[in-house]
């Protein structure tokens, strides 16, 4: 193996090295291929970026995008618009998990290429492993289900600009300034404030690596002045936006947890260049300047894997292990499957998961839709406020539940406010179209569908609905619309009233209103009201008595020493006797009773009624 001395004093393995080493050296792109292949698979199967597209009411900054020239033209009106527009388009590909994963992987790969290019240009080849830092940061960002695509694309554009600047090696100051200025203007128009990263990297490279002090200072001045000149004076945007658009500092909510990852992404290369640049300035040529190559890069093993590879593997594994957030993923998934009405998947997902207000709400919906609310609700943790989202406001989850119940105006209000909060998301447009179809406002439904037809991937669905509206203007053939019209609340009021009770008063056959009301009464231990409603409406809504209703009926009758008139099963009666006996056996020790009875009775209403909370495992 031959070793030659580079200009900067570092040692490089020559191409005429040992044939075996040369082969593995040439094969080193394999490291990238393996890394990015695994990266893609991780995004497709573990992270599933289509959950970000759905949003679950947890992502407020996912961009709206319409296939329409007027819409696209808006992105030309301000610096950074091009990157924002491109990001908005790329974000639409998150509709499909695999396409979204491809977008993120390509972005990560480009980050890696640019980082590599910049490190090479600064003669920092031995630190090439740092090219994996931006992809790993992307992994961290997406693992926490945050959406910062425009900022990361801005960062990538700036790094690509640095590569271009480094490629156009210029001999004198004037060509150097000209090339810097040309790239700066293009980059600033495209990426707005993210351009500052480009300026910082170029200045650092000129000052610390190329030692072209004058050019560095001129570039620094241009970098400072250009956003003001182009942004403030030409585009007439405010100074804050001129300098900070697409930079993490422009983010409205500075408490956003994922933002620190974006800061890290922007800071990593300037940090590396500053560190090594200063190191070189201070120690190059002195005896203290030690090349860590022998330790850091090491000699490659027979398989071409060295210490760097091991570090990369360790870092990747660590990132995946520490940044995974399966609980957060469940929140997104539960909401996604609820909106898709895939109820069995919702119930499957939440098994063994701890209580969460929104999950609890989704579970109750899934149980109702699968005909299990009256028989299985206490298999899961319960909260009466989660049932109809009367605790914390959760508008994103509210609209579908309220629409199913027949509270159409409530659902419409929730949707309208959601549009304010989350933008014109396709699912909101689709639901608003449906609301207006139910209300008979067909011209408004057409407007929402018209907008939906301009959203990528939604065109066919919207077109189908528009065609249906044309063929059947009253939607008299649409059974779902007819069903919801029949359930719609007719009583008009403006103050707080018991809407579910009104729904049942107007239509005792409103099955969902009945079951939800019964569930609420059970959760609040209102057995008298439960019995009244059971007698009034049960026969209209069901042919058999579900398990928890049986338990509640038995309890009510037993507590009042009344004979059991209802057709309650023998098993339920036996269960009550056994439960009471077991409860008495625990005396007044409630903790002991909870522990003892949780196993055999934890999923029963009896346990919930006497021992508090849901006894679900």
């Amino acid at each position, binding site marked *: 193996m031959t070793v030659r001395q580079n200009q900067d004093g570092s040692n490089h393995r020559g191409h005429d090295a040992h044939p075996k080493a040369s082969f593995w050296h040439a094969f080193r792109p394999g490291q990238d291929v393996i890394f990015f292949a695994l990266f893609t698979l991780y995004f497709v199967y573990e992270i599933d970026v289509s959950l970000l597209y759905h949003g679950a009411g947890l992502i407020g900054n996912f961009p709206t995008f319409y296939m329409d020239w007027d819409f696209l033209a808006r992105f030309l009106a301000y610096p950074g618009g091009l990157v924002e527009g491109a990001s908005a388009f790329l974000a639409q590909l998150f509709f499909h998990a695999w396409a979204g994963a491809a977008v993120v992987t390509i972005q990560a790969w480009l980050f890696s290429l640019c980082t590599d290019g910049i490190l090479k240009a600064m003669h920092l080849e031995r630190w090439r492993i740092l090219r994996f830092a931006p992809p790993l940061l992307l992994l961290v960002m997406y693992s926490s289900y945050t959406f910062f695509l425009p900022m990361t694309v801005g960062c990538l554009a700036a790094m690509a600009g640095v590569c271009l600047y480094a490629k156009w090696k210029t001999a004198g100051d004037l060509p150097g300034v000209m090339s810097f200025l040309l790239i700066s203007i293009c980059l600033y128009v495209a990426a707005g404030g993210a351009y500052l990263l480009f300026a910082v990297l170029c200045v650092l490279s000129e000052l610390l690596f190329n030692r072209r002090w004058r050019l560095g200072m001129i570039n620094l001045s241009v970098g400072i002045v250009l956003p003001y000149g182009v942004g403030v004076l030409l585009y007439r945007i405010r100074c804050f936006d001129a300098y900070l658009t697409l930079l993490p500092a422009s983010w409205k909510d500075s408490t956003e947890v994922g933002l620190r990852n974006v800061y890290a992404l922007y800071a990593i290369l300037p940090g590396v260049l500053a560190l090594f640049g200063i190191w070189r300035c201070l120690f190059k040529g002195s005896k203290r300047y030690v090349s860590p190559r022998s330790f850091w890069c090491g000699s490659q093993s027979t398989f071409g894997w060295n210490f760097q590879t091991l570090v990369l593997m360790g870092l990747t594994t660590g990132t995946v292990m520490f940044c995974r957030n399966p609980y957060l993923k469940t929140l997104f998934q539960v909401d996604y499957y609820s909106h898709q009405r895939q109820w069995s998947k919702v119930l499957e997902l939440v098994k063994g998961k701890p209580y969460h207000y929104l999950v609890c709400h989704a579970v109750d919906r899934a149980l109702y839709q699968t005909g299990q609310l009256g028989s299985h609700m206490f298999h899961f943790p319960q909260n009466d406020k989660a049932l109809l989202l009367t605790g914390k406001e959760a508008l994103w989850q509210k609209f579908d539940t309220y629409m199913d119940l027949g509270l159409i105006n409530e659902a419409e*209000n929730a949707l309208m406010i959601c549009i304010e909060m989350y933008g014109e998301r396709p699912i909101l447009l689709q639901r608003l179209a449906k609301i207006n179809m139910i209300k008979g406002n067909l011209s408004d439904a057409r407007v*929402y569908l018209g907008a939906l037809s301009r959203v990528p991937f939604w065109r066919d669905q919207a077109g189908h609905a528009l065609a249906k509206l044309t063929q059947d203007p009253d939607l008299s053939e649409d059974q779902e619309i007819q069903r919801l019209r029949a359930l719609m609340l007719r009583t008009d*009021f403006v*103050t707080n009233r018991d*809407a579910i009770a009104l729904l049942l008063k107007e239509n005792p056959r409103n099955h969902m209103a009945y079951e939800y009301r019964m569930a609420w009464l059970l959760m609040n231990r209102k057995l008298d009201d439960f019995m009244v409603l059971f007698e009034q409406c049960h026969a209209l809504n069901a042919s058999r008595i579900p398990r928890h209703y049986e338990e509640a009926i038995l309890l009510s009758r037993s507590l009042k020493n009344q004979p059991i008139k209802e057709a309650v099963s023998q098993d339920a009666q036996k269960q009550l006797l056994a439960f009471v006996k077991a409860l008495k056996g625990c005396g007044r020790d409630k903790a002991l009773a909870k522990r003892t009875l949780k196993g055999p009775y934890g999923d029963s209403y009896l346990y919930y009624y006497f021992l508090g909370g849901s006894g679900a495992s």
Partner: protein
Amino acid sequence: MHRRFMMGLLSLMSVGLIAAVVYFKPAYQEPITEYESVDRPAHLQPDYSHAVIPPNIAPLNFSILEPGLLYCARIFSAQGEPIEIFSQKSCIQIPQAAWHNLLKNNVGQALHMDIFVKREDHQWRRFQTISHEIAREAIDGFLVYRKMHPTHLRVKGRIGIYCRDLSNYKESIVLDGMSYENGCVNCHSFCQQNPDNMLLGARSDKYGVGTLLVEDGVARKIDTKFGYTSWHPSARLAVYSINKLPMFYHSSRNEPRDTVDLNSLLACYHNDTKTVVIEPKLAQKEYLENWPVWSGDGKYLYFCRAPKPWSDDTPSPPAQFDQIKYDLVRIAYDLQTNTWGDIEIVLSSRETGKSVGMPRCSPDGRWLTFCLFDYGYLPTWQENSDLYLMDLKTSGDAVPGYRRLEINSPKSESWLTWSSNSRWIVFSSKRLHGVFTRLFISYVDQRGKVHKPVVLPQQDPTFYESCLLSFNTAELVIKAPHVTGERLAKVFRSKEKISVRMPITMATPKAADAQSYSERE
């Protein structure tokens, strides 16, 4: 490397060139010599037929709602070259220069439109000719309006005041709420359709509430928010309302949104002294006063007034919210002595059985338009709100006559503005889409006949079929506002402001909610 780069660049340019040629290629044209006549007019969208149109309006592009392979529109009048447009799509986009030439050469004459459609049997059909009338009087060149989502709880959605050049489709920003941290923009008012004097209310979590005053090209911030505002024609004072307007929802009414004016008064802003004065006659405790508007000559202030049936601590909405009906009243004003006369009832709700809102006087002093609706002060959210016209030049002491306009639709009509020559009105209507408010232009002839309205034209004739924004608070102006955009936003964000001593009353509004804003269309 260099060669490969050049090759790549050339390939890219070639692809671009081909794409441009394909995109901009002229539509297939053929002389229509034979056709079959169809005994009805073609279905067009928007429907501009038989309207009186301004001679300076942008081309009224439209879609032909007839099935066909090829479409042709021939637009002609007595003078000048006809315009002939062929299109493979049903959208007809009229060339601007030719359109303006045709209109300019035929002012006061009829404008005709022949529609031809080539059906699948390759035969041309010609539909009945559609005619418009080109008015002699031009409409003011610009329209300033607000665009927002039709919700009244603003969180972070976009809201802004825009200026539209009516002779083309150019729309520019006057003030964008995003430019001051997701702020809100409220009513804007101009003195006699001239944007040299403009007042514009704004608020934001970060920068508080305020009113932007533009005078002679200079913008300043007043440290209080003006509600519905009307400039005196002299520009020396403006009267504005201070309201307490909570929002609430209906559980099943088709329009879910509603509001009530819990407490209000009118205040006078004297521009010379930069002070606010409360005239007791305009701020009576037992009344709710709203919608101030000056007569064309500035001798009367018209406004709406209703007795206040609830106490100040009544929770919202009060039980009688749907019983409140406003009268239309006026009060004389002498600018020289700054004295007010007595309040006269112009139109009593007892007489109409309805509530009056949004009165607007024509600048020539002849007409007064207003909305009549079931209850409350805001017609926009009431489906039965209709436009009415009152003739103020009734001789002697006779009660001015008023009538419901023929242009009303079954949906809500509101927010009307007059052109400076009193020949045009622009109003908001929900006739096209019940949720979304759109703007319509109507011609008012000398006898007060209001002609068929046309929707504000857009370059893409299908624009309104997918537009999720409501257009409201339209104001016609003779020229585009000079101080706009970032220049205006910067003033709002700055700490410099004109402090007016605001008299504390029960109606003095509280600071805006920190989290969200309620907003009315």
